[in-house]
């Protein structure tokens, strides 16, 4: 496994130090790393393991358990389609299938140009506006399958601007 360079390792250590006093710091550390770097590869997990004393296998387990965490770099825009029960009965599967079709990627994958990542999310707690789609934190309520094309286009336009 390639080791992190010293500067990157120092940054990860700094993130770990933010939660020194916490009883169970792992989720917070991983959230920060995910937010700041977009993904949490194994070599980063090794540094977190060293700092926290939590085994790499356990950290890896947490990273692969939560769909919010990623092992590979994510795209500039992360499209999260909620597939929780409420969204699902309101047609979320058709919505995510449409995203998948238009972007040419499966859920969990990133487009070759690095622009979009498509994620299938479990309940994001927005059942009242099902089916919900969240893109980089912006939530789209009651998404209709016909809207998907326009949503993608708006981000492509934003990216090229």
């Amino acid at each position, binding site marked *: *496994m*390639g080791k992190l360079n010293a500067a990157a390792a120092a940054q990860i250590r700094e993130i770990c130090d933010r939660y020194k006093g916490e009883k169970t710091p792992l989720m917070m550390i991983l959230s920060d790393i995910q937010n700041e770097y977009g993904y949490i590869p*194994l*070599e980063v*997990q*090794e540094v977190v393991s060293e700092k926290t004393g*939590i*085994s*790499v*296998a*356990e*950290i*890896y*387990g947490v990273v*692969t*358990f939560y769909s919010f965490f990623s092992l590979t770099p994510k795209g500039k825009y992360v499209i999260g389609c909620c597939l929780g029960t409420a969204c699902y009965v309101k047609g979320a599967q058709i919505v995510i299938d449409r995203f998948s079709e238009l972007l040419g990627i499966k859920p969990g994958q990133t487009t070759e140009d690095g622009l979009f990542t498509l994620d299938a999310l479990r309940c994001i707690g927005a059942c009242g506006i099902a089916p919900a789609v969240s893109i980089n934190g912006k939530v789209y309520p009651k998404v209709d399958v016909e809207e998907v094309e326009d949503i993608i286009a708006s981000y492509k336009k934003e990216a090229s601007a």
Partner: protein
Amino acid sequence: MALVTIKIEGVSHQVEEGLTILEAARKCGYEIPSLCSFNHGECNQGSCRVCLVEVKGARGLVASCVYPVSDGMEITISSPAATTARRMSVELLLSNHNQFCQQCDKNGKCELLHVANVTGARADVFGGVHSEVHIDKLAPGLVRDTSKCILCGRCIERCKNAHGLGILGYENRGFNTFVSPAQDRGFNDSPCIQCGQCVSVCPTGALMEHSEIEKVDEAFAAGKVVIAQAAPAVRAALGEEFGYPIGTPVTGKMIAAMRRLGFKRIYDVNFGADLTIMEEGTELLGRLKNGGVLPMITSCSPGWVNYAEYNYSDLLPNLSSCKSPHQMQGAVIKSYWAKVHDVAPEDIFVVSVMPCTAKKFERQREQLKVNGLADVDAVITTRELARMIKRAGIIFERLPEEGWDQDIMGDYSGAGVIFGVTGGVMEAALRTVYYKLTGEEADPITFESVRGHEAGIREASLDINGTTVNVAIASGMKSAKVLLDDIRAGKSKYHFIEIMGCPGGCINGGGQPYVREFFLPHEDDDIMDTYKEKRARALYLEDKRQTHRQSHNNPQVKELYDKFLGEPNSHKAHELLHTTYAARVGFNDPE
């Protein structure tokens, strides 16, 4: 401890407060089938749902392994609701389990099959797909096969408890969950020390030793001169596989069985242990006298050596350069023994019977080859030896007591025997070091202060003829880490440290027979707490009965030095009996 009154099946019992229903019921004479719970809550997830019982007033059935008893509690184990629910839990587990039981080496010791029998689980009740299978057969010591895993988490907890390592963890979620070293890596591509503690707690055949029985078969078929050597801890536990009470030494019958399996010679690794003491004792005295690197740490346990190479490579100079006893003995067999018997070393096939899975890794180390030849060609565990004996149709109980082959390396001292228990190598070394420093034997012969049978740290300070020797003993990497961190920080006051990979030493090695209270109805109730002590006692008993109690008094060891090796730590001895270590990267790139 306070007592509470509970009712089981309408009958009142007084039990200790704080026990789980499962533990309390056991004390009252009931065995509730269970899987994920293990060893007084060492693993207690309440996840498998096999131990469901009815508790009056509770909402639904409760998992007895995590539910504590309370005063006035009324428990029903045998109600139709409870028995049906337990049966269904097992049927659900079986629905995602490869049921090739007849090909499984765990058959006969499998807890899943046991609870399936007990609960009356029916075959193929639930159809559907199985989870993706992940198999790792590349590590020398261990095999992982997730098609047999029930996700109980015992292996994960044991690795953490014994070693603080946590090599194994859950990966992914839901139906895709499986247990593995991170990233679905092989054990070889992770900092796993291959001690096999995970194997010894696995309820199914998901984690097993990497069997080398076939290798032994091939050697016989190829007409090799197949020589067997058995480690001390094997005799203290092999009998368990044949129904003997735990702690029954079965040395004589074991030798008789091995002779019937066709081995050309059967030697005791204790000879190698005596040799190790001569070399290691001399090395220690040399380091003390010449200002060498201290503390010196023993190197007999390959699990510990693996741990050191992964995690404390800066302390590798502290490790004794001595090979482990069976490697030393293998090297002597392929040199001196071969010469005396006029056999080409290439035609000799040395099989070590070990309580250990890491020894399978050790024997393949590049550093343990002499002129390109490995010292040892196959390592089988105590469990594998039992399998070979059963396969050959040998009725173990009816075997006579036989003795070791006597030529060249048939003699051994009591010091060699106790290598199998934590503190044993230390005591054996002290017996010889005392003699070397004073010119007379220690009286009493034994050094009780270093004895024990559990994990944790013991220490002693001895004044031998004006020389103070501070020693410490640790087994299990969690304990060892404390001593190692002190050395790293320059705070260690010790001269000599014994470290064993498995908690309690080799008697509790990852290749030893499985100990499960419900498979052992004739053992004491507290057998999970006492089995290590009982096995250790068997070794101390054999030590007591030996004519020679100190390694330097083993006449054949003396003869070997006189005729072949010269002095301990001589050039020849270094060539054959010593080795080197190298730092290793834990998460190296998988192929």
